[in-house]
């Protein structure tokens, strides 16, 4: 991981993501299925962007390609000018499913990335305790994941990715499994952490309100094959409070996005019924 440290030292601002003409296809039952076609976008350092689209549009696949889990069949992904081909600690990932290691306590889970990088024990506990405090998990640091609520587990997953100070934080519908109240709390918490750290965030969701509330820019995706259909600015003032989604600008934006997604959902249903 020395290369990562050198890179981040040379480039003063990190978190520049370039996706160039990205295509992904899978072979299934001898048939070639084009999941993504010609995805092209840039995310600037410190930006919070959402990939929004109906299910099956390949939004998670875009994220998996940036993470290095999926090999593109065409095109390239660069993070801070470095070509992505394998997963690495410069791209933190928060999964939709609860993904804490069941055999590690909250503290050990969050500490894992630092331990891998060989950070000293005192330094580690300093960093980890700081993050645990920030998300209100300090007093649960010795609990195992099964003793935590879903919201707590996702908070721990977020800071587990962040302690590595990644260039970009990739989030794949991280709050989809949570109840509505917890989800709102988590969204606010995420924004407050993000405004402190200014890490680039690419957030996948199918929830229009969530996208409007969180992001600077919304990439609306279309289906068959997956592609970027529209890029919309979400120009709401920051810091944002939950009820900002009820403001006239937000409602206007919501309506616009809703129409775009509705077209795609209808299209994907027609294909399914064929």
């Amino acid at each position: 991981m020395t290369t990562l440290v050198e890179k981040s030292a040379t480039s003063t601002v990190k978190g520049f993501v370039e996706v160039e003409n990205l295509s992904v296809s899978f072979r299934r039952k001898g048939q070639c299925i084009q999941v993504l076609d010609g995805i092209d976008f840039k995310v600037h350092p410190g930006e919070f962007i959402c990939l929004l689209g109906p299910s099956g549009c390949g939004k998670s696949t875009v994220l998996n390609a940036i993470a290095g889990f999926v090999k593109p069949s065409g095109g390239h992904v660069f993070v801070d000018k470095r070509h992505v081909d394998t997963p690495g600690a410069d791209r933190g990932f928060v999964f939709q499913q609860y993904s804490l290691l069941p055999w590690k306590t909250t503290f050990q889970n969050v500490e894992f990335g630092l331990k891998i990088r060989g950070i000293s024990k005192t330094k580690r506990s300093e960093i980890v305790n700081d993050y645990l405090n920030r998300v209100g998990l300090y007093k649960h640091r010795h609990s195992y994941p099964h003793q935590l609520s879903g919201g707590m587990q996702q908070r721990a997953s977020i800071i587990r990715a962040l302690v590595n100070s990644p260039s970009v934080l990739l989030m794949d519908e991280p709050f989809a499994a949570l109840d509505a109240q917890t989800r709102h709390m988590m969204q606010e918490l995420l924004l407050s952490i993000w405004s402190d750290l200014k890490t680039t965030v690419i957030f996948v969701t199918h929830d229009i309100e969530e996208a409007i509330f969180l992001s600077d820019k919304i990439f609306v995706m279309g289906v068959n094959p997956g592609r970027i259909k529209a890029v919309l600015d979400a120009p709401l003032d920051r810091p944002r409070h939950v009820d900002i989604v009820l403001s006239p600008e937000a409602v206007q934006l919501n309506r616009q996005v809703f129409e775009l997604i509705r077209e795609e959902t209808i299209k994907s249903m027609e294909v399914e019924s064929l």
Partner: protein
Amino acid sequence: MSSPSSERSLNPFSLYRLQLILKHCLSFLKSRIISSFNTPLIHSKIFRRVLSLFIFFGVWQLLCMTKFNFFINFEFLPSPLEVVGATVQFFTNDPMQHIRASIVRVLTGFSIAAILGITLGILIGWFQQIEDLVFLPLELLRPIPAVAWIPLAILMFPNSEAGMIYITFIGAFFPILISTIRGVECTDLLLLRVGQCLGATQWHIFKDIVIPGALPSIASGLVIGMGNSWFCLVTAEILAGRYGVGYITWESYVTSNYPPIVMGMLMIGLMGAFSAYAVDRLTCLLMPWRVTKKQPL
């Protein structure tokens, strides 16, 4: 071994007394059972488990006393009371040398099986090349029952003790091996991805994700393996010259002395159940993170 004559002289008297005691017990239990259906006693877990044992031995005794014979014949089967007699006989004749001999054989065979099974299982589960190289021969050997190994155990090993340990080893080895392979192979892809995104090396993924993830499976392999080791004890101790619980069982069969056979069977069952329970408890200590409580529906 007890001589048949001394047993005969002991049996009528002690059996009569035991029968009386059991009758008292049964009538007491009967009254308790009837009353307990309306009381919270039946809700007690311990009571239910003790009750299950009483019912088991009670039904058995009843079937023997009535000489039950409908397809399955209980007429010549030793009754629980006769088995108790044989057990009293056994425990008055230096029982520890038999018990110790059996425990040492089982534990040695099991320990070797645990070490080899877990090591080989991890290697086979993790490295495709190693699986390709050794898995087929092992699969070929796996279905062979312990009793079929006896002639080869005599040919291959320098003494009968090593042969017996080999047979208890065979019993434990395959369940441990297969459970370990499955445990390693079934590593959650999501957790592997978690490791990759945190920059984990192969070694860290192996040590912190694959092995702990396989532990529950390995633990159940060990519990089954421990049971199987005892399962193979009678087979193993066919090779024994003098001592062993399995040896007594086999020897009593050869001499057509039936109560000690059932006693040997029950003792093996008891020691097997106890040691499997001990293995289960010990492995649970290794996994404080696991939720083992049965979920209420």
